[in-house]
């Protein structure tokens, strides 16, 4: 128990927590939006994120991006990787919806079945990257950790009260919060967002009022996937690695963040993600890093004991400007 270490570096640890939490929050959006509209936990969402990190690696490899390029090249490579990750993740999310959920929905399957096919999809995707692609293409695919070139090298931009603000950190926090703000505005202000909220509040009535429910469902999978793609890029920038099963823990944490904030609530995802990220970093300082995951779930259980619907506890339909 080392509270002194926590107190003495509180600002630094909080910043670490916010960085970590921003990525959780972006991934959490995918869980929360799908839940809001379909009352379904999309367990394949963790792999939607995983595919995004591979898309980043693929883009860097394809254009030969490495560490130590000029500023213009770094920006271009990063934007390209962002686009690739968003497309790959959104595409994966859409494919999961088409293959694992839509046929069942058409048949009117009970909710539990969707969870099983979601988990099935997740395993298939993990094994695709861990085994199938290795057999076909060889490395870098396989069951090992793969380095992603740190195209955007970490430099200190400025200092606030002895706290180093690095470019990567700033990008992650600002990027994540900007994406969430954009998504929140989209859902609350735009016509498509209105359709999403209508379906979230009353799917049958929305349908009778001319809202195409299938289209809304596709839209939330694509948006959730795109957000996971953004998270994948930011993760790659921060940690410079990927692995076939990288989605598992990130997905689990993001799901926890979504539940913590109030599942179905977009702003809850942000609050839950940041809360969880900070709690984890504090725990790893106070005890040791082995305690990170334990703390995450203990915090979840304690919060849910007092606030069973999560910190903000509303549904997607209710989230409003």
């Amino acid at each position, binding site marked *: 128990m080392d509270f002194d270490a926590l107190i003495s570096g509180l600002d630094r640890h909080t910043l670490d927590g916010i960085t970590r939490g921003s990525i959780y929050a972006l991934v959490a959006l995918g869980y929360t939006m799908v839940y809001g509209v379909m009352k379904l936990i999309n367990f394949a969402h963790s792999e939607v994120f995983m595919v995004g990190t591979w898309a980043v690696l693929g883009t860097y490899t394809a254009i030969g991006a490495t560490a130590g390029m000029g500023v213009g090249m770094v920006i271009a490579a990063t934007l390209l990787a962002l686009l690739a990750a968003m497309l790959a993740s959104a595409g994966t999310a859409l494919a999961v919806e088409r293959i694992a959920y839509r046929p069942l929905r058409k048949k009117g399957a009970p909710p539990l079945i969707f969870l099983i096919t979601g988990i099935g999809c997740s395993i298939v995707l993990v094994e695709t990257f861990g085994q199938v692609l290795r057999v076909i293409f060889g490395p870098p695919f396989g069951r090992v950790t793969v380095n992603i070139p740190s195209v955007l090298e970490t430099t200190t931009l400025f200092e606030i009260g002895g706290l180093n603000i690095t470019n990567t950190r700033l990008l992650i926090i600002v990027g994540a919060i900007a994406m969430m703000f954009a998504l929140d505005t989209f859902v609350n202000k735009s016509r498509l967002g209105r*359709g999403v*909220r209508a379906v979230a509040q009353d799917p049958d*009535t*929305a349908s*009778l*009022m001319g809202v195409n429910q299938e289209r809304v469902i596709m839209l939330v999978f694509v948006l959730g996937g795109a957000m996971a793609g953004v998270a994948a890029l930011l993760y790659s920038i921060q940690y410079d690695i990927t692995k076939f099963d990288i989605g598992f823990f990130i997905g689990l944490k993001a799901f926890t963040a979504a539940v913590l904030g109030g599942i179905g609530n977009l702003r809850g995802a942000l609050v839950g993600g940041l809360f969880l990220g900070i709690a984890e970093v504090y725990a790893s300082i106070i005890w040791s890093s082995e305690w990170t995951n334990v703390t995450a779930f203990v915090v979840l259980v304690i919060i849910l004991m007092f606030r069973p619907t999560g910190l903000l506890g509303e549904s997607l339909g209710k989230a409003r400007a």
Partner: protein
Amino acid sequence: MSEPTSSTSTVAEEQVVLPDTSDHDKIAIEQSGKQGDVLLEVDHVTLRFGGVVALNDVDFQIRRGEILGLIGPNGAGKTTCFNAMTGVYTPTDGKIRFKGHEIAGIKPHKINHLGIARTFQNIRLFPEMSAMENVMVGCDARHKSSVPGVLFRLVRVRPSEEELPASGIRRSLAKVFGISRHTLEERAGRKRSMELLRFVGIADRAGELARNLPYGYQRRLEIARALATEPELICLDEPAAGFNPAEKEDLMGLIRRIRDLGHTVLVIEHDMKLVLGVTDRIVVLEFGQKIAEGTPDEVARNPKVIAAYLGEPDDAA
């Protein structure tokens, strides 16, 4: 099919704002056929749930431009009939044709796009949206922009002078790149929604969340939302449930004005005075079967109807 009792009493201080009829031409709809043509045909429809026969060989037609009443005692199958017409249920047997199209088995949102809208006996608004937004969801049904078209504003329209933004740089941009069709549709939807709220008389609380509106306002909001989808046929499921006599009187006026806009109206109602007063024709159901059809006078004199329905007090609902 049980039909739950609507016992909610109306709030006394509800002020019904008299509608401004000068807007009618703005919200009137285009007709795709002649007055008096068959608009919707329920052709020997049978609907079974397991062993229960909810509708048994029900057969009637709705003509363009009329106000048709659908009446019958509780459990007669009126709402089931609505549900079959709007795509919630698929008939076991028989056909439903709307403007000549077979609609049984089509998805509800497609039926809505074809031109049928409805309200609900037990109010089903989007509770966490404002009144305005509720109506706009209805307007959205008529918009043409696709999802990518909306996200990236692909379709550009050369704006007319009054559509241009007032301020400098946005005005110049709009002149060069045009305005996205989505923006114009959104603007038109907002305007039309406001006019519809005015039409049903609740424009004064347009910004309020639907769940916070008084009961009478909620009922009218449902009608406005249904009208927003520009239906050729609007189905009102017990629109007067829970209304006091003065409000019922207002509602009769509203139903007539809805017809005047060019909509054909099908109304389920328990209140005989209202039904006899506002409809052109009436179809009577009992135990899932049609037992009578005719003008209000004919129906009111029909002994079968009197036995089945009029024998009970009006407010049996």
